[in-house]
């Protein structure tokens, strides 16, 4: 059962969502209308396209996140073997964190962490 357990979780999710939506599709009333299918904007007709360029700040954070997350992945194997290796691992992580900290400091001083 073990190898199929995670597959079962995935299939259960599919059955739950698919079954409930199929049930609602047949049981729920369907009265489509022109006004009803408008995007909701508190009653005012929507202006212009929605899929436009977005505030650059979000992308900036995404890039910094990408750098830090990839570096976090390197810490996982270290964390598991830290106990066994001891002092060498500790010194290595100090060097690693110094570089990581300098990276954060650089982003901070360049105002990448300030929302404008």
């Amino acid at each position: 059962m073990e190898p199929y357990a995670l597959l079962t979780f995935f299939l259960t999710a599919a059955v739950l969502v698919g079954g409930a939506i199929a049930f609602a599709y047949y049981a729920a009333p369907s009265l489509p209308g022109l006004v009803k299918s408008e995007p909701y904007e508190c009653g005012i007709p929507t202006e212009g396209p929605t899929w436009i360029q977005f505030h650059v700040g979000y992308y900036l954070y995404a890039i910094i996140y990408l750098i830090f997350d990839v570096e976090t992945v390197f810490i996982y194997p270290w964390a598991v073997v830290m106990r066994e290796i001891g002092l060498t691992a500790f010194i290595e992580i100090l060097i690693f964190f110094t570089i990581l900290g300098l990276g954060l400091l650089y982003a901070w001083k360049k105002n990448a962490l300030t929302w404008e």
Partner: protein
Amino acid sequence: MYDFTPFIESITSYLNENLSPFWAGLISMVLLGVGILLFYAVLGLYLVYAERKICARMQNRMGPNRVGPGGIFQTIADLIKLLLKELIYIRNADSLLFNIAPFIVIVASIMAIGAIPFAKGLQAVDLNIGVLYILAISSMGVIGILIAGWASNSKYSVIGAMRSGAQVISYELSVGLALLGIITFAGSMQFSEIIASQEDGWWIFKGHIPAMIAFVIFLIAGTAETNRGPFDLAEAESELTAGFHTEYSGIKFAFFFLAEYMNMFIIAAVATTLWLGGWLPFHLFRWGAFNTVMDFIPPVFWFFGKAAFVIYLMMWFKWTFPRLRIDQLLALEWKYLLPINLMNLILIAFLTLMKWHF
């Protein structure tokens, strides 16, 4: 005492003796699936009820109290109502992505449950990278949120989704680094081994101050990851109506709602397992009589008791703190939590090196 392993094994061996391997596997999958569905539905509905009741008490109201004794059937009535509501399709919306978004959100929250140990032997899969698995799967949820906001073709939804994306990816770093502290202490990413390492004391007590700091950071970042509490910018009611799920109606809306509560449970379950000893009972030093009495309470009750405590804390945050602004939110993560977290991890590594934890 109270070990579930023989119980599960007896079911598997009974099926294997009486049926061919294919049917035995299929029936055990169906049994597991039914179990997951029941657990998911009961827990989701109960959490929604608990949230409404706690919120009402904090605002000096009664909360739901008409359907059933004390209103406990209120959420079931709501679910039936939502099932029978019309599924509205939005003009010019990307209908494929629009329909697939609730599925992704639900898949992320259901699959993460697979690795959580509820009691000894009551765990679907005991992966040797359990912690990493839960982090990876639960961060898939943000893709669903981004898709939902983008596909709706509504401006509120897009703003909500973008905010949610920036917030969840930022706070994921803090969640990961806080978990890394306990992985360093325990020397393993497998949940069963992390629990076994806490038999002589929970990490929140054994790990001195750094473990407590990591716990607090994990709670803050976990609340932000589930888009809840003071960090609910993605669905800020007063400015974005309902954020990324503004355009969803009926049962599709219910899935987003359900997934939020299940994510909260997953965060609470991970906090319980890593810091509060999982299903282990509370032991007070070497006080034999007290420890024996505590051992009589089944581990399932311990697990859910601790998880309920963490969930209560998260609900408490939500109803007592004002919402943050987006720049404050990102500054909190990048300028406070992340540097504190890095320092804290070095402290934890030092404690592990000197073997100063108890």
